[in-house]
Every structure is written in C-alpha cells, then in structure tokens.
C-alpha cells in the first residue's frame, strides 16, 4: 500500500494525499502537490521525496519552518505516524508497509539508474515548479524494466535480536584454572573470543544461536575439551566443560546474568 499524508486543521481532516510520486511538494502556491492555503505557509514550504517505501521530508527554506512530532526540523526520514506541523496545519504520515513485508522481499540488490536518483539539484527544490513530476516513480520504472524487486529490509533489527545473550539470561564465562592468571574470569560477551596469540597458537570461542563453540585455528597443538583433543571441526561447549590449551586449563560455564 502506498504511504500517505493526511492533512488536518484543528483536528478536522481536510484531505488525504497518497505519496505516489517521487517528489511531492508542499506549499501555499497552487502548483504544489499539497496546497495549504494559509499565510503562515511559504509558497514553496517543503518537499517529500519517496523512494520505494521510504519517504524523506525536507524544509525548502520556508519562512516559518516546520516541526515533526513537536521538534523543529529541516530534514527528516519519515516514520509511520509522524506528525508534521506547518503553522496550524498538521500532516500525519501513514506507512503501514513494514508490517506487510514478507521475507521474500528482503535484501534484494537493486540498481538505480542515474535518472532515478534524487540529485542534489532536485533536493534544493529547483524542480518544484514542475508539478506533473516527469520523473514520476522512476524507481518503479526501473523495477519494471529490470523485472524485479521490492528492495527493503532492516538487517539491523534482526541482528539486534540475535545479539542478545543466552536465552535463559545467563552469561557464559571462561575461568582460568591453572597458571599465573589462575582464577581470572572472562565473560564471553563478544561473538568471537580469541584464545592464544595469532601466528602461534590460536583457538577461538564463537557464540552462535545454538550455543558456544570452540575451534582450533592454528598452531601445532590442538586444544582439548574434557581431556579429548579437538579435531578440525568446531566443538560445542557444555556447562562446566574443561578446556586445555597450551598447558593452561580453563573451565567454561554459565552464570546468572544478574550475579
């Protein structure tokens, strides 16, 4: 579904504007895509540039400025339910696309041809006087030409979900049992922890969704877990496993996150 802006004044809805063009201009003059006939509004007040499912709001040097969610703003990457205030008029941004995204839509790479890019000249508002938007939906055009794709994704959110520690709220710990640093505890908070020194003897502990693994990387000696030497394969670690690497013994265990 196309994102839209809902124009209202004093709580009363005036009109809805679907964001179906790459550039939608907002201003007092009649050639704007969204006309707000009020003297507090500049002739050319702002512009909304929409690329695929993302919309960007930019104040085009208006006299009285604008606010987004109560904060004076020059440029803003619009999020669903944002409220843009221009004078006493409000424009609510509605984009419920995100919830409709299917996994098949994710992470496709898409080429933008030169013509489809919002050039710097465009974003300064030079084109505002061509209300018929000749570069109408150029992104869609590219999509049509290339036979594809719905390019959208927030890799970030997925990454964050996975980066949370052990599901039981426990923290994995490695405690040195022998040698000069005996007793020292190392919390395994990183996705990858190196044991040993690169170039000599190295094993790594990796955190994966399934748990923690130890892998031999380099060096003449393979580390052992509970007295058994590792092979070239990664080995999953269990609570209270004892690792021995280059003569040093370490215990792997989970402890309470709050402890």
């Amino acid at each position: 579904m196309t994102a839209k802006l809902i124009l209202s004044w004093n709580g009363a809805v005036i009109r809805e504007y679907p964001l179906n063009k790459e550039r939608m201009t907002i201003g007092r003059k009649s050639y704007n895509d969204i006309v707000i006939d009020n003297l507090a509004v500049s002739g050319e007040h702002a512009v909304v540039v929409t690329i695929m499912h993302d919309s960007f709001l930019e104040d085009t040097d208006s006299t009285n400025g604008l606010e987004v969610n109560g904060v004076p703003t020059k440029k803003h990457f619009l999020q669903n339910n944002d409220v843009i205030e221009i004078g006493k008029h409000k424009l609510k941004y509605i984009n419920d696309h995100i919830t409709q995204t299917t996994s098949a839509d994710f992470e496709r790479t898409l080429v933008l041809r030169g013509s489809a890019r919002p050039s710097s000249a465009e974003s300064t508002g030079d084109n505002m006087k061509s209300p018929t938007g000749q570069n109408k939906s150029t992104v869609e055009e590219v999509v049509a030409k290339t036979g594809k794709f719905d390019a959208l994704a927030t890799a970030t959110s997925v990454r964050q979900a996975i980066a949370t520690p052990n599901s039981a709220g426990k923290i994995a710990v490695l405690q040195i049992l022998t040698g000069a640093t005996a007793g020292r505890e190392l919390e395994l908070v990183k996705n990858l922890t190196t044991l040993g020194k690169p170039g000599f003897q190295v094993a790594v502990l990796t955190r994966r969704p399934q748990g923690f693994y130890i892998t031999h990387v380099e060096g003449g000696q393979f580390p052992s877990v509970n007295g058994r030497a590792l092979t070239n394969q990664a080995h999953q670690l269990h609570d209270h496993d004892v690792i021995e690497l280059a003569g040093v013994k370490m215990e792997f265990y989970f402890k309470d996150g709050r402890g």
Partner: protein
Amino acid sequence: MEMALWQSETTSGLVMKVEDALEMACQTHPGMARSHNEDSVACEVASGLVVLADGMGGYNAGEVASGITVSVLTTEISQGLLQDSPTRCDQNSGDEYGVLLLRDNIQRANASIYTAAQSQPQYAGMGTTIVSGLFYDNRVVVAHVGDSRMYRLRGETMEVITQDHSLLREQIESGMLSAEEARFSKNKNLVTRAVGIEERVESEISIHDVQIGDVYLFCSDGLNDMVEDEDIQSAVYAMQGNLPLAVEQLIQMANDNGGRDNISVILVKVKSSFAAPNQWLEKILNWFRK
C-alpha cells in the same frame, strides 16, 4: 633451524613471485533465504588476481551477469599478464598496464552483459556489482562498481578501502540522511552503479601499497549487511593464520544472523614481499625515454 628458514626466504624474496607471496581463500554461499546464488567469485593466485561479483536480475540473469564478469576478468587479465608487465606505464593514459587491465576488462564485461541483455528478453536489465584486486609489485590495484567491498586488516585495524556506490552512502554524503538515520534505512540495497546496466560503466580504481602481514577481505553485501564490522574484524584477526577457516567463519556468522542474501568472501594474505624484479631497470629506461 627457524633462523635458516627465515634467511633463505628473505634472500629469495628479492625475486619473489606473487603466487609465492600471497595466500588466498575464497568461497560463496547462497545464504539461508535464497534458493540460488547470484554471486560469482574467482581467485587466481598465479596472476595475483581476485574477482567477486554480486549479480542481479530476474530468473537466473543475476548469475549470468556475475558469471560473465568473473570469467571475462580472469581470462583476459591472466592472458594480459603474459603479454606485458603490469608495472609498464601506458604512454597514452599515463596509467600502469595493471590498472588498464582492470579498467578495460570491466568495460569489456559491461559490454558483454549489456549486449546479452539487449538481445535476449529474459536477461533484460541484468547487471552485477564487482570488486576486483590485482596484486603486483608490493601493491594492490582495486577496482569496484556497486556495493561489493574490499577491507584491509593491518595490524589489528580493519578498514573499508572501497566506498560503496549506493544510494544510502550518497544520501549520507549529501546530508539527506544522518549516519544514525541510515542505520534504520530500508533501502540499504540500492546501488547507483552496476556493470551491464548501461552502455558504459565507470569503475572506481585505486592503488594501495601492501605490507607483509596485511589481510585483504573482498565481500558481497551478504556479509557486511548481516555482520557488524567489529565482528568481521575480530574473526579475520583471530583466524588470519588459517584463511580457509576464516572464510568459513565469516559465512557462518552471516548465516547465523539470518543469511538473507548470498554471501561471498575472499581473503588474501600477504606473506612476503613481491616487488617487481625489473623495477629499477624499468625506471632507468623510462628516465632515458624522457
């Protein structure tokens, strides 16, 4: 024993061949979400050449585009290196032959893809990103188009050497988006340049001195979109002594985080010096030609 080995390496290091000086490992994986792999990779240690391409286009057109690019570059460049030294300076352009090999052959791949796309409807609009490195004379020449990257690990510091040709980066540079907003942008995958989309393509080429111990990572966005730079750094740093394992680890991390796209990874480690043997001679000859 150790000492003697080290000495013999340095003395022969004067005429070290690039294939003896470099170690390479590469792999490509479809990821967890895609049924097929549109990436293509190649490592030619004898030529000191690596190529990585991330194709796009409907049906199997993406594979075709990235496949054409990788095969054109590997075939033509290894042939070209037999003809002439990559350090020779081209009189017309002022560029080295090594630079020309990359630039001209990316253009050639572009023409092949563009022509195929024009003549066969099922290939219409296909294209590919590319990142390619050619190692010679203690340097790496890197050429790229699109959002496939080259990173360099030197000591403990990992840096992105190439700058993505992507909408996101352009928006950040023009001030339309702050870096903070960019983290939440949904159009991470819009590239502003690609091989095969238009009649000609402009590749971005840069030359970097290499140091012994450097590790170079070439990857498609299937890696760097799924794995934080910090985690990429720690994996490459910890596993630099075992490149095939490092490559596997990087792919596994991308897949563990969702593996939404195809993942390609190439690692190149500089083990010793590979200065061009006739460099001083050539310099003198060039000087006389002036």
